[in-house]
């Protein structure tokens, strides 16, 4: 019996109580190398894993306020679930989440709540989600498996001397009534990653946690830290345009940054105690400053093209970021500014609610749907009943519904994903866009991602790149907002 099968058997054989461990928690205790070695077997039978994950999530729900009020006892089989479970949205959970935030436990599941996730999503309106201990571990498990695939393709990720720049909104947002942290999903991912990467990071944790630094100053400081580190090798940044903006700051303010590196200080407004703390961790580096000054004096600017980036950071070899949908368009814009040999790896598709896929190829936006992360259902865009992971068709787009270990049940993420082949019998999925982003014209519903696909075809045919593509609709019709560049 393989170790993941033993882990599943252990999880499902337990009496469901406070000490019981779920499938992701049992699997997380397997050594990552062993689990990676077993992945081909695991991915040959996503149906078995998915059915057991659903069964377990529903067991974890029993006894919660939500399960009682929605009569979860009737879901005794997958068929019952498929026939009767309602598709839900955030509003269905809001009162339960508010009660749990106020200190009333067991609202959405009976297990322990590890923390709360705050998200602004793409709308800018803040929402909170509960994160159960099992749900938090499921995310860490997906991260761990992603890390194994990435290190197999990019061994530099394991090189402790190759420094990382990880860009994320790291700081906790607040505390709940019972003292649990309220964090951002991307910040929590960065925090979990940091536990494994420790000294690889060129930005000290004290920088991320320092209070009172304005966003613009934070970008400036990230640029100074990065410029000061000759061993800078890897970028981890969901939306790579943010790294592009850091390069812009180096272009515009390179001379000032060289002076900061020379003196071990930052030319931004900082609280006195923060400045003192950060200065201790950022010693003056005359040698690096002299080297950069020489480059600056030659061209009057530190970065005029990819060759300057290769000179400043000779070890820079990989970028991990989102490559799909509109963010992928922005990422490609930044990648064109970097030296040609730099390898690119999809950061992985996920949301505040759960992490969903495992990228397994260089320069590809797709990844294997993680069958142990949550229960997946795929709703056809033209209507019809949701399909399970083992029933989907290659090349087809679906709206994704998830049932998670953190108490979301048949929850509509409002994400459109495309099936892009299979690994074993498990589908590879790529995020296309939000199902809430569409225009209705003459009764026809056209999604933003369909326009984006069309524009990509035009880009290829006409040898140009659009670095901005948006659709605006009013009573006169629809308008495209563009900005293009020839290749």
């Amino acid at each position, binding site marked *: 019996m393989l170790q993941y099968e033993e882990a599943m058997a252990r999880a499902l054989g337990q009496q469901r109580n406070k000490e019981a461990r779920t499938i992701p928690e049992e699997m997380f205790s397997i050594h990552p190398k062993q689990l990676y070695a077993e992945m081909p077997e695991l991915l040959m039978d996503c149906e078995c894993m998915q059915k057991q994950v659903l069964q377990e999530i529903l067991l974890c729900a029993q006894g919660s306020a939500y399960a009682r009020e929605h009569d979860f006892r009737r879901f005794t089989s997958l068929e019952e679930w498929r026939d009767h479970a309602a598709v839900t949205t955030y509003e269905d959970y809001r009162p339960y989440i508010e009660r749990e935030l106020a200190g009333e436990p067991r609202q959405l599941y009976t297990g322990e709540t590890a923390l709360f996730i705050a998200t*602004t999503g793409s709308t*800018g309106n803040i929402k909170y989600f509960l994160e159960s201990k099992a749900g938090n571990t499921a995310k860490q498990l997906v991260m761990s498996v992603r890390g194994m695939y990435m290190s197999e393709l990019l061994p530099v990720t394991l090189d402790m001397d190759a420094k990382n720049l990880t860009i994320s909104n790291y700081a906790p947002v607040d505390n709940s009534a019972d003292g649990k942290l309220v964090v951002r999903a991307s910040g929590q991912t960065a925090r979990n990653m940091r536990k494994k990467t420790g000294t690889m990071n060129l930005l000290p944790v004290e920088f991320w946690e320092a209070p009172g630094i304005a966003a613009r100053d934070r970008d400036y400081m990230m640029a100074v830290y990065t410029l000061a580190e000759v061993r800078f090798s890897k970028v981890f940044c969901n939306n790579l345009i943010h790294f592009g903006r850091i390069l812009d700051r180096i272009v515009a303010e390179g001379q000032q940054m060289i002076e900061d590196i020379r003196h071990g200080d930052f030319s931004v407004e900082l609280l006195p105690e923060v400045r003192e703390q950060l200065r201790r961790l950022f010693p003056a580096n005359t040698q690096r400053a002299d080297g950069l000054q020489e480059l600056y004096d030659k061209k009057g600017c530190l970065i005029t093209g990819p060759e300057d980036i290769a000179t400043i950071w000779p070890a820079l070899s990989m970028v991990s970021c989102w490559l799909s949908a509109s963010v992928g368009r922005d990422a490609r814009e930044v990648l064109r500014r970097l030296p040609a040999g730099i390898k690119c790896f999809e950061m992985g598709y996920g949301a505040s609610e759960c992490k969903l896929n495992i990228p397994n190829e260089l320069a590809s936006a797709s990844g294997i749907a993680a069958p142990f992360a949550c229960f997946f259902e795929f709703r056809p865009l033209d209507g019809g009943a949701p399909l399970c992971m083992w029933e989907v068709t290659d090349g087809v787009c679906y709206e994704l519904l998830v049932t998670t270990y953190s108490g979301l049940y048949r929850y509509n993420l409002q994400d459109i994903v495309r099936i892009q082949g299979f690994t074993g019998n498990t589908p590879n999925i790529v995020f296309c866009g939000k199902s809430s982003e569409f*225009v209705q014209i003459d009764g026809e519903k056209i999604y933003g991602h369909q326009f984006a696909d069309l524009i990509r075809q035009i880009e290829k045919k006409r040898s*140009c790149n659009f670095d901005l593509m948006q659709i605006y609709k009013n009573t006169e019709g629809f308008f495209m907002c563009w900005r*293009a560049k020839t290749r």
Partner: protein
Amino acid sequence: MLESKDAVDYTALKQELDEQTERLWGIISSGIYVVKQSYKDYQFTVRTREDRGACGIKLPLVISEEPLDSEIEMRI
């Protein structure tokens, strides 16, 4: 023929777009706004300055507010 500062033939691009949208969905765009680089820079800067996570700083594909005149380089 209209050309932007980037020497892109937007008229030809619009024609291509219209042919494709008509073929696919039987519709034609009412116009194209060629927006200035500063439009994107501004949109992104606002998003990164607000306290947002990774998803929140991406720009939407479908917008509900028309770009301002000062943000538009050319209308086709």
